[in-house]
Structures are given as structure tokens and as C-alpha cells.
């Protein structure tokens, strides 16, 4: 069969043509999937919010709270005309990458529950933070950070770390603490508690992960 000759004109036409057809095709597929992808994302967030908050009515009110130069997504849930709680998204550096958390607080400031949105922790070790009935994640439920010290026991706090995954446990705990500070800022509680809760962490980082 006769091949096209490699003249400059032929090369430009064929490569340009292919690129144009591909770009158009992608634009079409993108337009078709764009809404669905956005919906998948928002459904995921909605599911996480529902998981960490007590029953509420209607759609939560989404706001962005600026704290220490970082923006946080906060979802305020209402029922019967009054606020039942806030769900706060926060991120910290875990062992294998960022840990994205959704933390729910009720009107009194107690932690209702937590949900891991995404993480890249070691399977079988740090990844235990996602396990449904894991003692680690549920130990936060119902606690009020005003009296529950958000530090792992090794650092003088009240949180039992996952065995052999201290860094992950610290990062998770720090994310909850951050979320609490954002909650205080969002709900307009006194800021004294917020500043005391952000006291510098001693023994920073720590390389004693038994991985």
C-alpha cells in the first residue's frame, strides 16, 4: 500500500489533523462527563458530612473559614431553625502523604464523629484509621476537645495511638485539633480556647515510627 510521503506539508496536515480530531473528541467527552464527575465529588462530600453529624434538615450551608492563612471548608447543618453542628474539612501530613479528614462537631463543641476523605497511609498499619469499627477513630467520638487533650499518649495527651503507626496517629489527631480550631472560629466561641489548643507540639515530627 502507498504510504504518505514525508513532505513538510503532509506531516503538518496529518499531525495537525490528528491533534485537532483528538482535541475535539476530548472536548466532547469532557463536556459529557464534567457534570457527573462534579456530582460524584459533591456526593462524596455530602456522604462524609452526613456520616459525621447528627441528623439535620435540608442541605448544609457551605462556608470558607480563613484561619492562620489557610482556607478551610466548613459545612453548617441546621434542624428546626437552629444549628445542630458543623462539619469541618482539614488536612495534615501523614506518613505516606496528606490525610484529608471531615470532622463533625455538635452545637456544644463535642466531636460527633470523623471520616477519612482521602489518605495514602501504609496498608495494614496507618491505613487502620479508615477501618469502620477501628478503636482509633471512634475514640474521638463524643469527646469535647476543651477537656479531652488532643495529643497521643506518648506526647502527654489522651489519644491512644495505633500500634506501630505513631506518625499517622499524630497526624490524624493534629487534623482533628485543626478542625476544632476552625470550628471555634466558625461558631464564634471565645478565641482563648482556640489559642491554647494550638500550643506548639513538643517533640516535633519524631522519627520513632516503628514501620
Amino acid at each position, binding site marked *: 500500500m502507498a504510504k504518505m510521503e514525508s513532505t513538510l506539508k503532509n506531516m503538518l496536515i496529518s499531525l495537525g489533523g490528528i491533534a485537532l480530531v483528538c482535541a475535539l473528541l476530548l472536548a466532547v467527552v469532557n463536556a459529557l462527563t464534567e457534570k457527573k464527575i462534579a456530582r460524584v465529588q459533591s456526593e462524596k462530600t455530602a456522604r462524609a458530612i452526613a456520616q459525621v453529624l447528627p441528623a439535620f434538615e435540608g442541605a448544609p450551608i457551605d462556608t470558607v473559614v480563613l484561619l492562620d492563612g489557610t482556607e478551610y471548608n466548613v459545612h453548617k447543618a441546621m434542624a428546626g431553625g437552629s444549628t445542630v453542628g458543623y462539619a469541618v474539612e482539614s*488536612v495534615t501530613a501523614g*506518613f505516606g502523604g496528606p490525610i484529608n479528614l471531615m470532622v463533625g462537631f455538635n452545637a456544644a463543641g463535642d466531636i460527633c464523629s470523623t471520616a477519612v476523605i482521602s489518605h495514602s497511609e501504609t496498608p495494614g498499619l496507618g491505613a487502620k484509621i479508615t477501618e469502620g469499627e477501628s478503636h482509633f477513630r471512634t475514640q474521638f467520638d463524643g469527646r469535647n476537645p476543651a477537656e479531652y487533650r488532643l495529643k497521643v499518649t506518648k506526647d502527654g495527651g489522651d489519644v491512644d495511638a495505633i500500634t506501630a503507626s505513631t506518625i499517622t496517629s499524630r497526624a490524624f489527631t493534629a487534623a482533628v485539633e485543626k478542625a476544632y480550631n476552625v470550628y471555634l472560629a466558625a461558631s464564634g466561641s471565645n478565641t482563648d480556647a482556640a489559642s491554647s489548643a494550638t500550643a506548639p507540639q513538643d517533640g516535633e*515530627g519524631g522519627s520513632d515510627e516503628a514501620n
Partner: protein
Amino acid sequence: MTILLILVSAIFVNNIVLSQFLGICPFLGVSKQVNTAVGMSLAVTFVMALSTCVTWLLQYYVLMPLNMVYMQTVTFILVIAGLVQMVEIILKKISPALYQSLGIFLPLITTNCAVLGVALMVVQKQFTFGGEAKMLNLGESVVFAIASAIGFGLAITLFAAIREQLETSNVPKPFKGIPIALITAGIMALAFMGFSGMV
């Protein structure tokens, strides 16, 4: 400080070959001799730094403003292929000696998934250097690319040194060639796991 963290993290802790599984083809293919391994890693460093710089700019100043992030993969791979060609032509003109030593590796780099992998990673993933999770800026991205390439170079050079020794040892027949190389790489990966948690 951030720069130091990026370097240590990309070279040792999250070594691109031994813990991210990128660039395995050249890792297995061009690692029979230390000389060629070093040549390959120099070429990779050069192309990776350059392409990450260009693709980062493309992502933030062209694709995102135009709302065309879906063209990411297509444009990035074209940029890499084009850059590799360009580097080859320029190198041939200005430094024939360098071209002699690196030239043969350049065409292989287009399909080295580590190059595209790093270019995509810096615009898609949040990084966690220094306790906070954030996207990298241009400077940090280029440093990350260079560090990843050094990590690649370190792994492939060490591996080549081991394989040179393996040549003379008595390996059971079914293990000859790739299988024993993979098992060696596995043991190296085990050793590199010792770095985890450092950053």
C-alpha cells in the same frame, strides 16, 4: 529548609523507582553496566527538570485559565517528546562529545514513565513537606524533579553495580536475567524502606 526536605524525601524516602514504581523499564533495561547507568541518569535528570518546568507553566498559565485540564496528558506527553527531540538536536550541535555519551539514551526517555509521572505528580498531588499539605510552586517543582532524577540515578547506579557482580555468580537457570534482577531490586526496596518516616 523545604528544599532540603524535598531532596531527602524524593531521593531516599519516596524513591521514584523503589517505592513509586516509576521508570522500571530503564531500571531493568539499562542497568547491566555502571557506565551506561550513569549516562542514563544524567540524561533523565536533564530532561526531567526541563520538562517539569515547561509542563508546570503550561498547567497553571494555559490549561487552567482555558479550562482545558482534560488536555493535560496529551499536551504533557507531546511537550516531553518535543523536548527530548530538541535536546537531542541541540546537543548534537553544541557538544558532540556529550551527545556521543548521552545521545543513545535520549529516545528511550520519551517512554520513561518517570518523566511524565513526575510532571503529572507536581500538578496533581498535594505534597506534605514540613508538616503541611500543599501544592508545589514552580521552584519547588523543579527541585522535586531534579531530586527524583537523582533518586532514579542512585537506584539505577547501585543496581547496576550489583548486577555487574551477578554476572559472574552462579544463578539457577530459571532465575537468570530478569527474575534475579527483580529479586535484587526487591531486597534494595526493603533496604530503602529503612528511610521511611524520616521526613
